[in-house]
């Protein structure tokens, strides 16, 4: 960071002031002129929090995608289908048992098992044939989409979180001052979203620790850097491949439950989350977990702020970001050249 500051003093100053201004916007009571420009602070704060929590969801989906891509160079275009599958499984389990929390391990395990099958029967048989692998995953996503449509129809499914999570909670963010009493008004925000955000962050940190502080993580990182070296280390690596694939797929399934809880599960969501993962990893840098986190937050914020401040083109905004990143930094923000 210091190296960056000495190398680009002007940019560092601009970034510093932008960050300071943002912090001020979050914590201060807004003066009238700012409300004139941006509208009520409550709207801004909810967009910010919604963007970050959505980023958390995107991170869960995209980190699996980028992990698989980084290690095995498999572009798994069926990743969105894994997400949707996880959502449906979570719904079944949650409604059948009545325990929301059980939906998570169930979705993770089933989708991870499905991922192992994919790795075993598809990817290992076509090692080194990038295009063919990608085509197969397109075929699988077409088939899965239709099978799920067959099984679940075109309805929207919502996974309901338990009572204690469903209400709003008062946060410490000030949105304004009561005119009558002069008391501060604090923002209320759904608990479940905050819980999920915390979970996403914990999973992210867990992945980082796993990758950077453990033996298996070293092996995986070595594999991302130099695949030839990895194959020279022997047979064990096939198990690492299977493990990473299962984990990445399982995360997508897990994300499906999350998505089903604070949004809904329906046909077409597979494509939406596949695209979100693509854009997130293109922006963040392919194969990089930190990049996926950064990209996910950027895209989540862009979508939410877009839908609040210029609703017509909210979806397009994310793609504009992608194009700009591609034009100036084709390897992604945190990708290696």
């Amino acid at each position, binding site marked *: 960071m210091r190296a960056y500051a000495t190398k680009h003093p002007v940019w560092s100053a601009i970034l510093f002031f932008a960050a300071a201004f943002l912090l001020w916007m979050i914590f201060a009571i807004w003066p009238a002129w700012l409300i004139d420009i941006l509208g009520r602070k409550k709207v801004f704060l909810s967009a910010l929090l919604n963007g970050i929590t959505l980023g958390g969801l995107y991170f869960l989906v995209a980190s699996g995608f980028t992990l698989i891509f980084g290690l095995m*160079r498999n*572009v798994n*275009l069926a990743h969105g289908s894994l997400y949707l599958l996880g959502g449906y499984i979570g719904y079944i389990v949650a409604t059948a048992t009545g325990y929301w929390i059980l939906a998570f391990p169930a979705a993770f395990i089933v989708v991870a098992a499905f991922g192992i099958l994919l790795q075993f029967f598809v990817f290992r048989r*076509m090692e*080194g*044939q*990038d*295009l*063919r*692998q*990608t*085509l*197969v995953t*397109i*075929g*699988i996503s*077409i*088939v899965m*989409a*239709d*099978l799920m*449509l*067959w099984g679940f129809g075109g309805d929207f499914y919502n996974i309901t979180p338990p009572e204690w999570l469903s209400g709003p909670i008062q946060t410490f963010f000030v949105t304004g001052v009561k005119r009558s009493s002069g008391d501060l008004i604090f923002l209320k925000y759904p608990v479940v979203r905050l819980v999920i955000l915390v979970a996403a962050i914990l999973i992210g940190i867990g992945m980082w620790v796993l990758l950077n502080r453990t033996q298996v993580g070293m092996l995986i990182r070595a594999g991302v850097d130099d695949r030839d070296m990895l194959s020279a280390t022997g047979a064990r690596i096939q198990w690492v491949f299977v493990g990473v694939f299962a984990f990445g797929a399982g995360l997508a399934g897990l994300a499906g439950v999350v998505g089903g809880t604070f949004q809904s599960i329906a046909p077409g969501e597979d*494509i939406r989350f596949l*695209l979100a993962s*693509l*854009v997130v*990893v*293109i922006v963040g840098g*392919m194969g990089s977990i930190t990049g996926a986190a950064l990209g996910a937050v950027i895209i989540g914020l862009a979508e939410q702020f877009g839908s609040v401040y210029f609703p*017509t*083109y909210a*979806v*397009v905004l994310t*793609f*504009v970001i*992608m*194009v700009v990143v*591609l*034009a100036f930094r*084709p*390897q992604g923000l945190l990708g290696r*050249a």
Partner: protein
Amino acid sequence: MAVTETNLGLSTQSDFSRRNAGESSSTAPWHAQVPVGYWVVGFVLLLMPAFASDFMLFQIFGWTFILGMIALSLMFLAGYGGMVSLVQMTLAALAGYCMAIFGTSAIETISLGWPWWVAIPIALIIAVIFGTITGALAVRTEGIYTIMITLAIASAFFYFTRQNYVIFNGFSGFNGVLPPNLFGIDWRGPKAFYYLTLFWATLSFLVVVYVSRAPFGLALQGVRDNPRRMAALGFNVNAHRIAAYSFSALIAGVAGILLTWQSAQISPGTAGTGPVIDILVIAVIGGLNKPIGPFIGAFIYVLLKTFAIDVLISLGLSGDRFQLLVGISFLLIVFFSPDGVLGLWERWRASRNRDPLLDAGEDRLS
């Protein structure tokens, strides 16, 4: 410049070999160089309106030729350039939109109503410009990334047209986009439309075959096989790739105009993620290595799309399972014949011709 050589797995050098085969017999007159099969197919296609129903001409063949052209534009990029682009349907739809916006449609508040000889060139130019920009973005990364980036761009176009009401008229798009009444012919009449699409499909097919052996096409195949070497011969590798995108956009654009005329409408759904991926499915089913492949793939796709429902219902399944059928046939093709049904056919023919006493290693050249 870091040049990674990606193994795309599907690209073979059959066209290089074919060129060689053609070159060595170039002393023969041109009509003798065309295989007999092509003559037969050509005559049957020309005489088709004499015995085929209007539905066959307009719906089956008209649509086959149009989808075949769009898939051909993908085949040019993927087969010769090694770049799998999912943006071809989007380029076609953009040209179609331009026809509606600059020409005439039922949405008179937006359509400018310019004559066809102004609208068509503008539509094609815009499609080519958009294709070029997409190419310039896509070639900044290599190999398999292209598919992800073009998919993202295609989706961006879909969402944008769906949201934008000022230019693209949002969700409903444009209807009443009709071809001009040139020479007093109704070009949407089954016979006229059949010949119109046949003409453009044949022309684009011949142009692709011709260009594949011209310096530009040869260099593109060189770039596909060995970008580093091409740079060491003085070729600007990326410029060639981008030019290939422009050229493919032209073909896709022509097809897009025809597609819009056929259904007389254009809407975001024309270039939704489904149709965008269908073009890849068509090209892969037919075969990505030869210009005829996309047309074969388009024919199979159109037949499936038109008659699969009847077949499914007669098998006791719901007609809704069309996508399942398409998906499974696509998977089977990718699994068992990476070069499409053309590859299947060639392998079958090779195994039949093989002399069991000789090792026929050169069957590819036959």
